[in-house]
């Protein structure tokens, strides 16, 4: 006990020194290499400059298939411009915004099994429960999911998205390699397998199995595709707008976005 009291001040002083150095602004991490090579205006500034150009963390992904991916990317860009954009524009012109919102909400509500199963697979039973609550409230009070009354219940609002690829990511499986899918766009080997899981878990795709018949098989999934076009094209435009290289801009945005989604 005596020994403890005698070393205590030393420990406390050390932690004081550490905390003071942590809060002083002059003790930032030094750059590995600190020889100013042009660029810096004054001595101090160039040290800081060398420091912060090095430290920025940039999410990246292996892209061994880049030539093929670039070709698919440009093909997709053409499909978006000449096919999807006119459809999206037509849909937004013909269908009024409140109706579009209702349709969007209903399709998102039906996707409940995707979110429920994946939250459960990620061991996040609290979110799986919240999703169940959302589904019940939105399907009943929200009239088949056309409205989203669950957003106004604090314990059910703002539940982060969950999908199969995200589950793989939480299990520690990496992207593998970047892959641009025809029509669907940016993905990776892992996320493509994830998409297959999402497809199987989405009741929208069950209608063909349950009911057969062309009308249902085509009508429902294509309505689902069309309603998601404005959102998807909006995200694509945000990623590539004012870029130097559309392909790289889209790839970087995709990897960062997926990393963020998996971290929530």
């Amino acid at each position: 006990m005596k020994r403890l009291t005698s070393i205590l001040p030393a420990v406390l002083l050390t932690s004081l020194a550490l905390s003071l150095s942590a809060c002083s602004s002059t003790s930032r991490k030094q750059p590995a290499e600190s020889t100013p090579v042009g660029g810096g205006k004054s001595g101090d500034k160039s040290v800081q400059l060398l420091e912060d150009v090095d430290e920025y963390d940039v999410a990246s992904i292996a892209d061994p298939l880049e030539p093929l991916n670039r070709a698919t990317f440009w093909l997709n860009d053409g499909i978006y411009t000449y096919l999807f954009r006119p459809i999206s524009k037509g849909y937004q012109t013909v269908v009024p915004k409140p109706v579009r919102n209702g349709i969007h909400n209903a399709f998102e509500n039906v996707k409940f099994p995707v979110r429920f199963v994946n939250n459960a697979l990620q061991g996040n039973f609290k979110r799986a429960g919240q999703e169940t609550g959302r589904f019940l409230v939105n399907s009943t009070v929200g009239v088949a999911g056309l409205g989203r009354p669950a957003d106004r219940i604090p314990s059910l609002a703002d539940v982060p998205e969950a999908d199969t690829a995200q589950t793989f990511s939480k299990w520690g499986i990496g992207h593998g390699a970047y892959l641009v899918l025809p029509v669907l766009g940016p993905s990776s080997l892992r996320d493509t397998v994830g998409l297959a899981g999402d497809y199987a878990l989405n009741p929208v795709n069950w209608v063909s199995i349950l009911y057969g018949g062309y009308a249902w098989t085509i009508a429902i999934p294509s309505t689902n595709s069309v309603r998601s076009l404005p959102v998807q094209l909006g995200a694509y435009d945000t990623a590539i707008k004012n870029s130097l290289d559309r392909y790289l801009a889209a790839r970087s945005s995709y990897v960062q976005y997926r990393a963020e989604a998996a971290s929530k």
Partner: protein
Amino acid sequence: MNLRKFLLLATALVFCGTAFASSTAEAEKRLQVAVNEVLNAADQASGSAALVESLRPILEKRISFDAMTRRAVGPGWRQFTPDQQRKATDLFTTLVIRTYSSKLTPGMRPVVNIKPATSPAPGRVEVPTTLVYDGSRYDVVYRMEEAKDWQITDVVIEGVSLIANYRTQFDDQFKKGGANAVVNALSQSVNNPK
């Protein structure tokens, strides 16, 4: 370890803590001011071209374009001549202002909710916000640093950092043809808006 020493230590720790707290509060306040300035300008602008013009002075004051450019370029920045650095900064400034302005439509006011900031390192603050615009909700994090004043150095929308996004593209150009290639690609992008 007597009582006096202990009190001294405790005071020092508390002081250090408040220094952190006040810096995050200061940055939050600055961001709120910047957001209000931008939204008011967007409300008053008559069209998108006028919006770009009225936003430029505000953004040049609130965003540290110097820091943004050299980080977007990365380690290659050291091999830029002062002239190339100035050109790259000017061009990148125009590109960022254009990108930012294009997200605002005059007359449609987004709701910005600023949440408590954190300080990942001394002199640096991250302010998380949520932005509700046209019925959609976005998570936007502003990274800020203290120079003369608290200024924005990066904007992270739904996990996508503006700097990281351009870093990938600048790196590629730099590998192809050094500083000149970066400056040329930038000026091409500024002069041919897509």
